[in-house]
């Protein structure tokens, strides 16, 4: 939780500013995004609402349509404070609203993000098409296949790759979103991938075709 009493008289902000980074956790509704955020976050995931008409930008003119702001979109986020020798860094995890109809919020959510995790439930593979397609042209991402309790291995991660037509250089791995260790491993994997992309060691292949492979879902 934030420290309230470190400068009781409202003194100057800390000389070394905190640096923020952001990771987006995407995936279909009920795939375990909140669970994953909860596993690694140092705070209980907080829920933020965004009004529908703000549509993810600061420039929207809401004049005259105020009455339509009743629809809100809930998003979860968590935080991890990282201490590095140089400075304090705060890694924010933003869980996207699951439903596709809230896709318009993803741009603001993912603005400035270092990368994304697309969580996949193999029982509902088709839910992953939209997030994969969204991030493919925007930022480095990894695919994490959430293994649900009691679920048998329905697909090997490589089968998921084939089914979702995920480019060969995008990591696909299994995880248990409830497990802190496993969830942190996914983030670590994402960072390694983002680093590889940033250093030009791997290039995300441009999307060639998005033929639906819904047959097995």
């Amino acid at each position, binding site marked *: 939780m934030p420290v309230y009493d470190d400068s009781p008289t*409202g003194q100057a902000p800390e000389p070394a500013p905190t640096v923020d980074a952001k990771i987006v956790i995407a995936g279909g509704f009920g795939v375990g995004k909140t669970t994953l955020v909860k596993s690694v976050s140092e705070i209980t995931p907080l829920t933020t609402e*965004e009004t529908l008409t703000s549509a993810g930008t600061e420039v929207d003119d809401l004049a005259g349509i105020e009455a339509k*702001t009743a629809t809100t979109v809930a998003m979860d986020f968590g935080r991890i404070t990282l201490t590095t020798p140089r400075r304090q860094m705060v890694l924010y995890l933003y869980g996207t609203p699951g439903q596709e109809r809230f896709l318009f919020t993803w741009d603001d959510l993912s603005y400035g993000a270092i990368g994304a995790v697309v969580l996949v439930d193999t029982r509902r593979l088709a839910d992953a098409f939209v997030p994969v397609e969204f991030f493919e042209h925007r930022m480095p991402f990894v695919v994490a296949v959430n293994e649900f309790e009691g679920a048998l291995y329905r697909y090997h991660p490589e089968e998921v790759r084939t089914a979702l037509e995920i480019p060969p250089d995008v990591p696909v791995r299994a995880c248990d979103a409830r497990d802190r260790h496993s969830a942190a491993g996914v983030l670590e994997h994402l960072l390694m991938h983002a680093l590889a992309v940033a250093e030009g060691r791997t290039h995300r292949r441009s999307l060639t075709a998005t033929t639906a492979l819904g047959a097995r879902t």
Partner: protein
Amino acid sequence: MAGEGPAWSTDPGPVVRPYALTRGRTRPAHAMRMHSRLLTLPSPAARQVVTPEARRVVQLCRGHGCAVAEIAATLGRPVHVTKILLSDLIDSNVLMIQPAEDGADPTDPNFLGEILAGLRRLPDRAGT
């Protein structure tokens, strides 16, 4: 969210409606993102805020500051409404938006490496 839970709610929601709080305004004067970090300024104005929301914000943004999304979640207000409140506090010299940090480019290998090292140094990640 639509489609989940019962169709009714016993929660009346906030007593003060969101746009009453912003006195009808629907746009923040200062552009900020969900992850923009706000800092409480060492100004007398910061000690003289009166509304409960503003007091809470002043507390939250002390020291290292706080991100817009986190402030919104803590206040229990939509992000957009929160941005308008924060904008007012910036105008009253209570808060400032932390300038974008050098070396915080999400495509900069050094920045990414620093985060990766930080992740690996998390208490229960050591030695894995």
